[in-house]
Structure formats: C-alpha cells, structure tokens
C-alpha cells in the first residue's frame, strides 16, 4: 500500500511540476512585457518596475522565483486591479465556488447512483428507458444551455426561483441543478452498467439464496462493488464540475472564482489567469491523488498487487 501511495505521489508531483513549468513557459513566451501597457513610464521607472517584479533577472532565476512564489502560495498582484492580489481574489471567490462545487457533487453522486440503481433493477423496463433517456440528455445538453433554460423557465416565466446572485440556499438551487445534471448522467450510466454486471454474479445469487432481503442485497453486496467505477471517474468529474463553474457563475452572476477567472481571461489579466490555472490545477491534481488513494483502500486487488511487487 505504501508503495502504491508513493508511486501515486511521485506522479502527482511530476504533473504539478509540468503544469507549473507550462504556465511559466507560456507566460515568458507571451508577446511583450506585462508592464508594457503603462506607456507613460520613463526608462528608470520601467527598470525599477522590472526589478520590482524580478523581470530583469535571467529566465532561470525568474523560474526559481516563480516556483518559490507558488510553493509559498503567493500568486502576486492582479495587473488590471492593482489594489488586489490574486490571493485576495482566490480568498474571496474560492469559498463560494467550493460551496457550489460541493453541492453539485453531492447532488450528482446521490441522484446519479439512485437513478442508476433503479435503471439496473428494472432492466429494459420503462424506468430503465426513462432513466437512460434522462442520462443521455443530461450528457448531451451543455450546462450553459441548461442554465439559461432554467433561468428562462423557473425564474423568468414562472418566477419561483431567484435568477441570479448567491445570497441564500434558494439561490443555490438552479446553479446546482445546471451544474450537476451532466455528472449525474455520467454516474447514472456507469452505475447502471456495473450494477447490471454485478447483479448476475454468483455471490448475489448466493445472497438471494440465503434469503436476504432484496434491498439489503443491493446495498450491502451489489452497490459496494458497483460503486468502484464511480470512484475511478470522480477525478474527471471534478475537473468537469470545476471548469463548469466558470460559465455557471458567469451566467448566474455568482461572485465565485470562476467569475473572476472569466473576467481575467476577457481582460487578459495574465497574473490572475496563471495564478488561477496553477491553483485550480494543483487543486485538481491533489484531488485526483486522493481519489487514487481512496481507490487503493477500497479495492483490495491493488493492495495485493503492490505487496507482490515490493
């Protein structure tokens, strides 16, 4: 197990290093200096500014300083809003985005699993077809389309839910639905197909022969195994949800990190773009690592494998 964790950890560190280096290389190759826009500055001021941001140093020193700033979690100031640092934006926006993301994951996982189980139990029945139609639609409708549809119907037409902002739990309903539908559909399809496979296994027949109650068989015996693939794709789903928050927050006017990120893209505010990318990438890569470790704990085969390998 320790060997497995160490191996995953090594992969995580290399991936982190690649994304950090990639952002650095892209930042350096950007045409012009980040300070070029202040046309009025004279040469001394320009030189001082460059010295202040260490832009006069050779690339390898800049690279080391860049890595140092990331390790110490200091992403520097925003160019377009000089009074704010990227850290300020992250500190303000990330908790909100995190809240939205967590709500989405909880809703997606629970509803996806329930939908998948019912579809599998009523295989080829009406519920199965209904659940899978919902699932394929959920995968096919982009979240920004769903979000606008929801606003148009629930907020504008029927006026039952608030259309925008983020001030009460009621405001969370629509963004969460818009964001959770896609992941829910993927989880439902995955749960259904593995559930169908698991239900034909001998140990399920055995449990049934023992006279266990059907719901007990499903929860104790079938579900545990059927959920493994869901754990596997959690990392990918997280990435999808996270990038999904960019548009959802923009549409619903939620003051989360995604909104700042999109604004920074439109304003070409490079430090914010780079800082957010590195922060979000690191967040996702660490999450992926944790998912892998969780998977290692849940799946006994992995433990056996590494024991043999050591």
């Amino acid at each position, binding site marked *: 197990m320790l060997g497995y964790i160490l191996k995953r950890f090594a*992969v995580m560190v290399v991936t982190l290093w690649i994304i950090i280096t990639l952002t650095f290389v*892209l930042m350096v*190759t950007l045409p012009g200096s980040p300070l070029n826009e202040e046309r009025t500055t004279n040469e001394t001021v320009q030189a001082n500014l460059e010295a202040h941001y260490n832009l006069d140093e050779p690339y390898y020193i800049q690279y080391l300083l860049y890595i140092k700033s990331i390790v110490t979690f200091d992403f520097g100031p925003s160019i377009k809003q000089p009074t704010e640092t990227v850290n300020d934006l992250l500190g303000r926006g990330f908790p909100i985005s995190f809240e939205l993301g967590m709500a989405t994951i909880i809703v997606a996982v629970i509803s996806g699993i329930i939908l998948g189980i019912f579809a599998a139990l009523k295989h080829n029945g009406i519920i199965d077809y209904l659940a899978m139609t919902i699932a394929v639609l959920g995968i096919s409708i*982009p979240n920004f389309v769903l979000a606008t549809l929801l606003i*148009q119907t629930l907020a*504008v037409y029927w006026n039952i839910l608030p259309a925008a902002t983020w001030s009460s739990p009621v405001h969370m309903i629509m963004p969460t639905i818009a964001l959770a539908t896609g992941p829910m559909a993927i989880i439902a399809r995955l749960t259904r197909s593995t559930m169908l496979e698991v239900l034909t296994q001998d140990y399920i027949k055995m449990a049934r022969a023992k006279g266990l109650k059907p719901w007990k068989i499903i929860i104790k015996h079938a579900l545990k195994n059927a959920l493994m693939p869901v754990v596997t794709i959690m990392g990918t789903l997280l990435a999808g949800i996270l990038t999904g928050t960019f548009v959802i927050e923009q549409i619903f006017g939620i003051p989360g990190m995604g909104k700042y990120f*999109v604004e920074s893209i439109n304003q070409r505010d490079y430090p914010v773009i780079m800082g957010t990318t590195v922060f979000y*990438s690191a967040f996702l*890569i660490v999450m*992926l690592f944790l998912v892998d470790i969780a998977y290692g704990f849940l799946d006994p085969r992995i433990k056996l494998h590494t024991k043999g390998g050591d």
Partner: protein
Amino acid sequence: MTSSDQTKFVHSPADIPDDWFKWKDKDPEAAETVSRPSLSYWKDAWKRLKKNKLAMAGLVFLVILGILAVIGPILSPYVVTDQNRPDQFLPPSIDHWFGTDSLGRDVFTRTWYGARISLFVGLMAALIDFFVGVIYGGVSGYKGGRTDSLMMRIIEILYGLPYLLVVILLLVVMGPSLTTIIIALSVTGWVGMARIVRGQVLQIKNFEFVLASKSFGTRTPRIIRKNLLPNTMGPIIVQMTLTVPNAIFAEAFLSFLGLGIQSPYASWGVMANDALGAILSGYWWTLFFPAFFISFTMFAFNVLGDGLQDALDPKLRK
C-alpha cells in the same frame, strides 16, 4: 455433456466411448454447409446497428446536419456576418426562418455556419486523436516492456493534467482562432485513445493468429497494419464517435467564454453567448436554435457511439 449418473471416469479423450456421441443433424454433410450467409465483421456490425433505432436516428440526423452545414449557408440569401440594425430581433418568419439576432443577423444562416464550425472541430479533433492515439498506443502496446511502461508513465502524467484548464491557458497565449482551438484540444485529447489502443494491442498481440503471422516472417509494420489494427478498430471507432461530442462541447464552451470563434463569425457557442442577454427580453429564438443544435448533435453522436459500441462488440453477436 456427461450426466451425473455416469459412473465411468474419463481420463483422456481416448477413453470416451463412441456411443456417447451422436450426430446432431441427421445428415452429417448438411452440418458442413454454412447455413447463414457469410458476413464480414463490418457487414455484421452494420446489420446490427441498423436494428438499433435510436442509433440510426442519430446517424440520419448527423447526415442531414452535415448536408445542411455544407449547403445551408449557400441556400440562404444572407451572409453570416451581415448586420442589419433595423431588422434586429425579428421573430422567425418567411424571410428569416430562424429569426434574427441583436444585430439583425440571420439566425438560420448563422446556425448552419455554426454547424460547419462545430462539425469541423469535432471531426478534426477525432482525426488527430485517431492518428496520434493509434500510433502512440500501438507502439506502446506492441513493444511492451520498458518502452511500454515509460510511455504509460507519460500518459499517466498527461492524464492528470486538467484538460480544459490547459486548453484555456493555451488559447489565452496563442490567441483565439479555429486553428488554435483544434491544436489546443489535440494536445491532451489523444490520451484516452492511446490508452484504449494500447490495451487492445496488448491483448491481441499474444493471440495465435498474430503468432502465426510472425512465424511466417511478417514484418512488424505489416503485422500492426494487417493483424492488430483491424481487430482494434471497433473500440477505436467508438472512442472517435465519443470524442466528437466532447470536442463540440469544448468548442461551444470556449466560444461561450470568449476564447473560441470570435463574433461576428458564428459558432453555436458564440451564438448562445450573444443570446444570453436577449432571451431575458423574450427573444427566445436567438438561443433556442444554437442550443437545440448543440444538444441534438451531441445527443446524436452519443447514441450513435452507444449503438456502435454494441454493434462492434463481437461478443454481443447473436
């Protein structure tokens, strides 16, 4: 074959008495003739796909969409970028079948122009994935050993990179355009394909027919081309059909964020973004048509992919 009341133990095939066997058909000659028409793998798959109504509906939709994407903008008397302020927000009518948008541009023309962009991005992404993924996965799986584990380490690392974030980063630096979108999508997109091809090749390369081919002295490229690839084509095609909707979504998503195709040119994502403000005022058609076609195209590719997955799986052959 044997029933439980058989008392005699059988140790080798030679011990089995002849009277245990009987001819299944009365005429042993008749058993030798092929009763069902010989079908190649592809014919069989096509036959089974045709039975899947939903997948066929998806295919028909995509063919029509493809045709309209080509001839739609030509049929229409309007030009994609033509603005006509007095005509803004006209509802669908004989003149403007899908209505007009905030700048008086014809939504019908823009929708088909957007279809071109979406299909082009989707197909290019799938093609690039195909070439890079098949070569990478094929080499990795066929070579095996150290080459394989090194190549798989690289994949493992790339797989951990957050795909859309990298794409956004690349687009910010390279500047938004159709080419950069396709490049950015291809940089990390091929990883899934390479994994699938590698897994398949790893499995198939040890089958007897490959061994037989090798023992005849067939050279490696020919083995890969003639023995391995045709047998991995099923999963590859399925993966390609599922790559297309992902790429279409990514393009729409990026255009929606302002990183893709730039207004005045049209893509479904751009149109959806332009329509955001307008639908609140009730101009539903500005959003409805691009949204409908994004969703239905993705739906069609998804059901077609699902159908192909079943049709191309030899295990499900009846």
